[in-house]
C-alpha cells in the first residue's frame, strides 16, 4: 500500500513536467531567473536619479508588464518603523521609488532562487522565488560658508530585504498571419517581505 502511494506521488510529480510540452526544470529556472533579473534591472533604472524622466516612466510601464495583472501589490518595509510592512499597488510603489527624496538611489537585486514548482487549479504552474534587495539612498549637500569653509552634510538610508515573489508560468498562444505561436510565459504576482536588515 505504502509503495503504491509513493509510486503514485512520483508519477504525479513527473506528470506535471510531462504534460503539454512543459519545458524542463533547467529551462523553467532559466526563464524565471531571467524574468527576476529583468524586473530587478527595471527597478534599478526607475530608482536611479540619473534616469531620464521619460525613460523612468517607460520603465514603470515595463515593470508592471512583468506582473500577471496591475492589481498586484508590493510589500515594503522600513527598519526605522519597527519593521512594519506596508502594501502598495504596483504603480504607486514604482512612482514612489522614482520620486524618492534623495540625491542618489541604488537598488540592486541579487541571489534569485526558486522554490518548488507546482500546478494550480487554473492549470498554471506556480512557484515562489526569493531575491535579496539592497537599497541604498543618500543625500549629500555641500555648503561653502566663507566663515566655516566647505561643509558636507550627508544623510541616507540603506537596508537589505529578502523578498518573496509569486511566480506564474502559463502557456500563451498568439496568432500571427495564420501562424500559431505557443510559448511559456513567466508572470509575477504579489511581492512580500520575508525579512529586513539594516545595513
Amino acid at each position, binding site marked *: 500500500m505504502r509503495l503504491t502511494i509513493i509510486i503514485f506521488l512520483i508519477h504525479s510529480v513527473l506528470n506535471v513536467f510531462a504534460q503539454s510540452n512543459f519545458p524542463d526544470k533547467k529551462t523553467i529556472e532559466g526563464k524565471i531567473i531571467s524574468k527576476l533579473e529583468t524586473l530587478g534591472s527595471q527597478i534599478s533604472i526607475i530608482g536611479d536619479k540619473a*534616469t531620464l524622466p521619460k525613460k523612468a516612466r517607460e520603465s514603470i510601464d515595463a515593470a508592471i508588464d512583468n506582473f500577471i495583472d496591475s492589481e498586484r501589490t508590493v510589500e515594503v518595509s522600513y527598519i526605522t518603523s519597527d519593521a512594519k510592512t506596508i502594501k502598495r499597488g504596483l504603480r504607486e510603489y514604482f512612482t514612489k521609488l522614482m520620486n524618492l527624496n534623495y540625491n542618489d538611489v541604488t537598488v540592486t537585486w541579487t541571489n534569485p532562487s526558486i522554490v518548488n514548482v507546482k500546478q494550480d487549479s487554473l492549470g498554471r504552474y506556480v512557484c515562489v522565488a526569493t531575491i535579496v534587495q539592497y537599497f541604498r539612498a543618500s543625500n549629500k549637500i555641500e555648503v561653502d560658508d566663507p566663515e566655516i569653509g566647505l561643509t558636507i552634510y550627508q544623510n541616507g538610508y540603506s537596508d537589505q530585504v529578502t523578498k518573496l515573489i509569486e511566480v506564474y508560468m502559463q502557456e500563451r498562444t*498568439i496568432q500571427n498571419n495564420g501562424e500559431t505561436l505557443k*510559448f511559456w510565459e513567466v508572470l509575477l504576482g504579489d511581492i512580500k517581505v520575508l525579512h529586513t536588515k539594516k545595513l
Partner: protein
Amino acid sequence: MKKRILLIVLFYLILSGFFVDTLLISIEATGIDVFKIITITIGSIGGIWAIIHHFMTLPKEVIDNKSIETNNKSAEDDGKEHENEIEVFDNEIGGNTIQKQIKPITINDTKKSKKNKIMIAILYVVLVVLLFSIGYFLHSKFSSDIPLINKQEIVTNKIKNYLIKLLENQNTINEFKIRDSIMDLCSSEQVIVVVTDKSNDTLNVEGISVFLRDVAMPDHYNNGNDSVSVVLDSFGFINRLTIIKKY
C-alpha cells in the same frame, strides 16, 4: 512637325521611365538613403526643367505649321529688305569698298535653330544622366558599407547595427531616436518580435515597440550577441523580427 514633337515627348518619357526604373532597382537593392534622395531630387528637377525649357524656347515655327509657312515667306522678304539695307549702307559710306555681309534669314536658319534646340535638349538629358551617375558614385563611395547582396541581408544588417546602437545609447535622448529609426524599417507598429532559443523554441513574443522599450533587459537583446533575422513584406519593410538567443 507635330509628329516630331510627339517623338521628342516620347523620347523624354522613355528616358525618364528608364531613370525611374533604374532608381527603383537600385533602391530595392540598397535601400533609400540621403544620397539617393539628393540624386532623385536633382535628377527630377533637371529632367523637368529640361523638358519645360525645351518647349519654352522652341521657336513658334516648330510648334505651329502655319506660322512656319508664313514666317518662311517673311524670312524671304526680310532677305530682300536686308539686301536693300546693304545698298543703303554702301551709299551712306560713299562708295567705300568695305562691304558688310548681312545674311538674309532663310528657311535653312530656322532648321538650324531647331537642330540647336534639340541638341540643347540632348545636352540637358546628358547632364541629368551625369548627375545621376555622380549621385550614384557618391552613394557607392560613401554609404556602401553594406554589401549589395540582397535586401533581406541588408535590412538584417541595418537592424543589427541599430539594435547594438540602441544598447549603447540606453537612457539617453538618442535611445528614442534610434527606436524611431528602427520603427521606420517596420511595416507597422503591429510587427511582432519572436525571441527563440537555439533549438528554435519560442521564449517570448511581443510587439516591436514593447521589445524596443525593453531591449536591454535580460530576456531580450541585452548582450548584442544574439542572432537576428527578419521577414520582409513585398515593399521591403519588416513584417517580423526574430531574435535567436545565444545562451
